[in-house]
């Protein structure tokens, strides 16, 4: 068989814990003692010896629901080998946290090291009306995190000037930013002449915000089900 065109798609072997293969697949190098939390059902392939379990008991049920959407689950992956994860063709982002914290919009978390701390924090102010929920997931500690974005993501620096983001396109932001909601609803919206953009979340401070070029944050399991 001529495998010339296929061999170009082979995953490169790297010593790094998490790498992105062809922008849509996450490759995780698993090692014993370094467990991984991933969205249940996101595994597409693995080699070596990898086991999948339900989420650990110390993870609060509500946190789990937030990550994986309604009725979904998180899974704990352990073992030795290479694990490949993907989420319905979304673009994969890999981040390494060095004793830092990242606030994530629930359904966009694909995987993270089990050593990281997942907490739910309430969204303050008007931003809670924005449709992305009353609470947010904060990933804290030292380790690797992987997010998924519908389309090629963009990181915006909030240090220079205030950055406003459509809550439906928001994926993640660094904690410690000043957040404030901004309404652009005018009286004209009441008579059927709205601009379609009513709420934005403004960010200011040292850090960055990640957005996706699609305003669909829903996860894919709901559609199939």
């Amino acid at each position, binding site marked *: 068989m001529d495998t010339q065109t296929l061999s170009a798609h082979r995953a490169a072997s790297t010593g790094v814990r998490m790498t992105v293969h062809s922008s849509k697949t996450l490759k995780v190098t698993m090692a014993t003692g370094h467990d991984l939390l991933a969205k249940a059902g996101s595994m597409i392939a693995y080699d070596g010896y990898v086991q999948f379990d339900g989420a650990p008991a110390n993870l609060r049920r509500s946190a789990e629901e937030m990550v994986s959407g309604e009725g979904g689950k998180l899974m704990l992956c352990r073992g030795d080998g290479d694990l490949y994860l993907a989420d319905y063709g979304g673009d994969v982002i890999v981040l390494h946290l060095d004793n830092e914290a990242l606030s994530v919009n629930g359904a966009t978390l694909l995987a993270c090291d089990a050593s990281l701390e997942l907490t739910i924090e309430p969204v303050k102010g008007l931003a809670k009306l924005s449709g992305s929920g009353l609470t947010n997931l904060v990933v804290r500690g030292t380790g690797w995190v992987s997010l998924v974005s519908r389309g090629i993501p963009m990181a915006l620096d909030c240090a220079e000037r205030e950055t406003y983001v459509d809550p439906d396109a928001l994926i993640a932001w660094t904690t410690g930013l000043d957040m404030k909601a901004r309404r652009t609803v005018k009286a004209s919206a009441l008579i*059927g002449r709205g601009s379609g953009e009513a709420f934005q979340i403004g960010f200011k401070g040292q850090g960055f915000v990640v957005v996706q070029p699609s305003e669909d944050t829903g996860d894919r399991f709901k559609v199939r089900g």
Partner: protein
Amino acid sequence: MHSTLFAHIPVESTGRYTLQNPQLLKTDVTQGSSPVLARQGAMVAFEGQVEFDSQYRNRSWRNVERMTGERLELMRCKGNGVVYLANLAQHLHIMEVGRGLTVDSSYVLAFDGSLGVGIVAVDSAVEVASAGAYNLELSGSGQIVLMTSGEPLLLEVTPEKNVCCDADAVVAWSTSLRTQLQAPTSTSAVWRRRGSSGEGWEMQFSGTGHVLVQPSELLPPQHLRTSGVLGQFGMGSGGLRGNNLGGSNS
């Protein structure tokens, strides 16, 4: 913190419209004199002071829209700053309108307010999925940003070379082209439109110009904002995911 993400920081603007990446448009609203007209709800993020207003449509225009179903709800973006626009991660293309462009309104992301817009009937009475019976015709000098599901194909039409496209996949064409619809049927199955080959209506273009075709024969999910108060205020995306069928465009 280090990440693959920092390859995706904002690019330098080179004019009014710049592609941040194939799926995201960076619009510098300070440049140019006319306002930027964008599809309602397409804003992903912005920096600086930008205002979003609904574009006023007079009664006759609204009547035409209602009768033809060619509905394009626009917002004016003006102010001082940079706006990022995108729609369902579709691929975006900046183009000069030049000598006129005919496009279905569901493939328009943004254009200069200085352009002339009209609704025209395509030479057929048949409503086909992608290029409907009515289309938008843009003229004047300015730029337009189109969106396609996947990477498109631009075909050149010359007097010697006619081009046939699946009518469900056609996105836009030069206004100067003549169009004609035809159904590829054989005698064995004339009564079935899709015949035995599974192909539906074909659009034939002749003249001189260009045709833009997308690698998908589906309409993008448009006009799916939730109704009611929330939808009026541009919030919520409940209907969206159900209609998006789990596919990402790539």
